[in-house]
C-alpha cells in the first residue's frame, strides 16, 4: 500500500507543480492546496501504514498505528488551512485592486 500511496502522492505533486507553473491566481492556489494534500499523504505514509489499530486506547488492542504522524498532519492541516485562507483572500483582494488574475501581467519592473 505504501508504494501505491507514494505514487499517488507523487502524481499529486506533479499536478501541483504543473498548476503552480500556470499564470492564474486560482490555479496557483489550487496548486499549493494539492501540494499540501500530497504532503499530508506523504507524512502519513512515512509514519508507516502497517495495519495497526485506531489510536484510541481502550477501544482496541495494541498495536496501534503510529500516532505521531497523525498529530503532525493535524497540525499541518490547520496550518495549511490558515495559509490557504490567507492567500485566497489575498488573491481576491489583488484581483479586485489590480483588475486581473493573470500573473504574467503582474510582473512589475524592478526599477520603476
Amino acid at each position, binding site marked *: 500500500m505504501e508504494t501505491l500511496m507514494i505514487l499517488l502522492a507523487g502524481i499529486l505533486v506533479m499536478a501541483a507543480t504543473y498548476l503552480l507553473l500556470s499564470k492564474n491566481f486560482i490555479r496557483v492556489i489550487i496548486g499549493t492546496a494539492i501540494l499540501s494534500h500530497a504532503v499530508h499523504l506523504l507524512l502519513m505514509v512515512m509514519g508507516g501504514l502497517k495495519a495497526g489499530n*485506531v489510536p*484510541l486506547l481502550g*477501544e*482496541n488492542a495494541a498495536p496501534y498505528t503510529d500516532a505521531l504522524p497523525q498529530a503532525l498532519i493535524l497540525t499541518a492541516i490547520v496550518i495549511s488551512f490558515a495559509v490557504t485562507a490567507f492567500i485566497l483572500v489575498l488573491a481576491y483582494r489583488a484581483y479586485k485592486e489590480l483588475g486581473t488574475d493573470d500573473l504574467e501581467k503582474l510582473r512589475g519592473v524592478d526599477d520603476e
Partner: protein
Amino acid sequence: MIEMMLIVSLVFFILAIAVSVYRIIRGPSLPDRVLAMDLVGINLLSGIAIFSILLDTTAFFDVILLIGILAFIGTIALTKFIERGAIIEYKRDR
C-alpha cells in the same frame, strides 16, 4: 452473509455517488449540481455508517453527523447564492 449484504449496500452507495458525480459534472444548471452534491453528501454519510460496521468501530459516527451538517450548510449557502448572489447579507432588505 451479513457482511456480504453490507458490502453490496456499500457498493450501491458508491454507485449512487458515482451517478451523482455525473450529474455534478453534467449540470446542466447550477441547482442541478447543488442537488447532486447534496445527494453525494447524504450517500457518503450512509456509506460511512456501513463502513463503520464493517470496521467494527464507532469512531466515525461524528463524521456521519458532520457530513450531514456540512452538506446542509453547503446546500443552503449555495441556494442563497443562486437566489440572491450574496451568501451572508448584512441586512436583509428584501
